[in-house]
């Protein structure tokens, strides 16, 4: 229901709602992560591999990273809009942020696929 509001018709609400929804997803993932760590207490490399390997956990981790990337993009975009008045410099910085976020996202996706 809320996802249907993330359209160009509501540009202000879209960014605001996206940050809230991604924040919620990250919070849920963090709680589950904490519970899993406390219950499974992985200590060795093999333990961590077993911890991370289930397909549903890899999917959850990917959703977490997609959420983190979009959340971070919206936040950093606002900060740069506020504190970098020079449009050319701001555009360069914004492009660097997008590039960094995509590199991280592709990297984590490859890592998750190769577990």
């Amino acid at each position, binding site marked *: *229901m*809320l996802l249907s*509001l993330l359209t160009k018709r509501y540009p202000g*609400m879209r*960014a605001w709602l996206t940050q809230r929804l991604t924040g919620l997803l990250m919070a849920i993932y963090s709680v589950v992560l904490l519970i899993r760590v406390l219950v499974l207490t992985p200590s060795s490399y093999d333990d961590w591999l077993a911890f991370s390997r289930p397909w549903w956990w890899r999917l959850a981790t990917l959703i977490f990273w997609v959420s983190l990337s979009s959340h971070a993009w919206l936040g950093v975009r*606002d900060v740069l*809009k*506020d*504190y970098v008045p020079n449009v050319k410099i701001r555009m360069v910085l914004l492009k660097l942020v997008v590039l960094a976020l995509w590199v991280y996202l592709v990297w984590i996706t490859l890592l998750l696929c190769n577990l």
Partner: protein
Amino acid sequence: MKFSIYRYNPDVDKKPYMQDYDVVLEDSDQMLLDALLRIKDLDDSLSLRKSCREGVCGSDSMNINGKNGLACITKLSDLEEPVVLRPMPGLPVIRDLIVDMTQFFENYNSVNPYLVNNDEPPETERLQSPEDRAKLDGLYECILCGACTTSCPSFWWNPDKFVGPAGLLQAYRFIVDSRDQALDDRLENLEAPDRLYRCHNIMNCVDVCPKKLNPSLAIARIKDLKIKEANHSKTLESKAPTKRQIAIKSLHD
């Protein structure tokens, strides 16, 4: 009592400076405005706005020891010395403690701060139930002093885009008014990315409001209302017949 006051006269000074005053106060001088008027007796070049001297007109809002407030209702006994006085931040300084509030009032005007009702005017006033009237409490009391808006970083960085806490409080004041008929227009008016959603709930506005109002809560309620309204219109859209359905129906007819 010791004061350090921001001074700037653009006709004379190349740049602003802080001027120290050590003033002997009378027993009757209880509020900061009393002390400022005492200083003005000593140095009549000091410029400030004032009018009602009882926290109603909002003229003498200024930055007092780093926090915005009204000089007339700020007790001298609550202030640490030297009392540092500056004009409200985020607005151009006209002279000394006087700022140009044009942008502030442009933003205020942009939310159409008046009742829109196209019904035939009744013989007497438009009535409200006590419950509907109660919804305006905490909103109508705003005196437009500008203390909240000029302590908001989102306004400092985007004064021409972000409406600011005072303007948004007033927007909500008319949004919840049962007599108003322009809800959709009012919500649409705040849809541009920087007008409403630049508020990040840091709550400086709540901290400084001399009338103890809560613009942050009003802003959060507007955001909630926008979601409800958008959901409502989406539901109506989905129930409305598509062009294809209308075409098929017209063929059958």
